[in-house]
């Protein structure tokens, strides 16, 4: 098992958002978590990535057999956990390419590999940028600086493609994307599916799951997973909306 979340409780600013969440993800699996606004989806994503101002008040998260909650955000990333941000941050003055190189070398160093050769790195990065249909010129620009919403999301998947994580949490990567950008993003994710890498897709809409076929779908509501099923659950949600499902779950 790659990731196991047991009875997780998380508070943000003194308010409990995640209230006893359980989830298990095996290597190679794609899980989708769906849920209405305010259900705790993004809190879960950022808690997994190690956001310091979110307080875990109970439960455990085991990642690759280790206690994830004892690791800092940067250690988690170096251990192969990747968060695709819902709202990627603009960092003027730090170029995209510099960030990628620093991030990649941090991961390599953690696994005992030498720093990547500069020429090899640029070839690798250009190849991945082309895959994500990102203009080469953006590499030299500040991180996400002046990017449109769609470009920022594509940049997240591009970073994932370069960093080749073992476990990627994609937090509403589909929101705000037009259909073409959505296809590019989905294609980027599908290319990364290799039977070993796992994904947790966090989304409000079924739309993305038309392009990325999940193995499991979970419904998050009120800080708990209230239903789990296969990809047909997503279609059911699309048809009947969250209200029906939540009503059934409560009954």
């Amino acid at each position, binding site marked *: 098992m790659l990731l196991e979340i047991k009875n997780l409780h998380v508070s943000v600013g003194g308010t409990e958002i995640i209230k006893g969440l359980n989830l298990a993800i095996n290597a190679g699996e794609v899980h989708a978590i769906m849920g209405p606004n305010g259900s705790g989806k993004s809190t879960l994503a950022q808690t997994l*990535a*190690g*956001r*310091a*101002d979110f307080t875990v008040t109970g439960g455990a998260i085991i990642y690759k057999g280790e206690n994830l909650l004892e690791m*800092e*955000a*940067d250690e*988690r*990333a*170096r251990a192969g956990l*990747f*968060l695709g*941000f819902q709202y*990627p*941050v*603009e*960092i*003027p*003055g*730090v170029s995209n390419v510099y*960030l990628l190189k*620093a*991030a990649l070398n*941090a*991961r390599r160093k*953690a696994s005992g590999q030498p720093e990547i050769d500069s020429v090899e790195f640029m070839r690798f990065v250009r190849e991945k940028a082309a895959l994500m249909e990102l203009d080469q010129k953006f590499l030299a620009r*500040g*991180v996400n600086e002046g990017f449109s919403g769609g470009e920022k999301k594509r940049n997240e998947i591009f*970073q994932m493609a370069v*960093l080749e994580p073992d476990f990627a949490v994609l937090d509403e990567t589909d929101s705000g994307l037009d259909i073409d950008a959505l296809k590019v993003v989905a294609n980027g994710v599908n290319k990364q599916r290799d039977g070993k890498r796992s994904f947790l897709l966090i989304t409000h809409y079924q739309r993305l799951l038309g392009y990325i076929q999940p193995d499991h779908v979970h419904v998050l509501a009120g800080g708990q997973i209230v239903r789990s099923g296969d990809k047909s659950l997503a279609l059911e949600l699309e048809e009947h909306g969250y209200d029906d499902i939540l009503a059934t779950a409560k009954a």
Partner: protein
Amino acid sequence: MHSAAKNAAVLALQQQALESFVNAGFPTTRLESWKYTDVRKLAAAYPDWLNNIPPVDTAGQPELLDIPNAIHIAFVDGKFRPERSARTLPSGLLVGSLDELAEAEPDLVNTQLGKLLNANSSGMVALNTAFTESIIALTVPENASFDGPLYITHYSSTAETSSHPRLLVNMQANSKLTVVEHFSGAVPAIVNSVSEVYCASGAAVSYYKLQQEHADSWHLAEQSIRLEHQATANTTTIDCGAKLARNQLTVDLAGEGAYLNANGLLLADAARHIDSRINVEHNAPNTRSRERYRAILADKARGVFNGRILVNQNAQKTVAELTNRNLLLNKGAEIDTKPELEIYADDVKCAHGSTTGQLDQNALFYLLARGIDKREARNLLVRAFAAELLTGISVPAIAERTQTALQGLSFGDT
């Protein structure tokens, strides 16, 4: 060619400066422009340090910036060191005492020396005028430029001494010049510098100052630039050393179409104090200026920024934009900032703004989530904050050295 006789004009200038200082004394915090910078401790040490005469042949030397084609002028403990300077100085450039300057270039002394900054500017300028041992004075002829940047180093190698660097730049019409003043030191010293720059019609100057004095030094510097018709100045002043530093830049946009692009960076940690101020006067129509100042303060450092833009009544169509951004890396760090606009013309476009804050926690988390460790992530964000100001500098070594100084800035956990 040492002339024993004091030149009459120089004698008058220096006597007047000394008298003025004796009457007014050191600047006090009662003066608005010295409100936050208390030089009483400097004043107490000054007489002794002024009387400590450094040996003429000290061996220490600064870590030089690597500037291609630089015309290097080396000063150590306030004394010109020709053997460490460029072997041949361009014609039009003189390094010597005020008397020697008066003998060689009487017009320069009569019409320009002490005209932009004089004893009335401040007690520190008065002291500089009274005690400066040698001046760097240069005239760049019409339509001409030097073969490379003028690179002036002022280095303190004898403890508890004082020096009074003085620069006079006379740029004739359509001439070009890049000048770098680099202050550093191995020991505590008092450095009290004055620079005057005249730009005639169409002249273009790039003026850079990099201050990396010893951590127990006092550094005071004033620069004044006058820009005639269509003249331009690009300035960057960087203060990242000294226990107490104060830099004041005054620019007079005196001719129509004159343009100023002024940048300033203040870096301080420990309990150091840096005061940086800029005073811009738009005195002619169609003049433009942009001022960008940033401070990065750690530990218990104290920063002061004062930016004043004055637009006089006849300076219609002025465009001016002043921004000040400050990064406080620790709770104990502090800045007093005051951007001011004074506008007496009615057809102008002026803006000013100031922000002060800590490192962006969202940006920090973003970098951490990419596997970059906390220390490196913070360094990266701090460097990025400074880099935005440093990108326009035409002498890359200055930006590189500043980034190195930033690495050395000590900041604990915020």
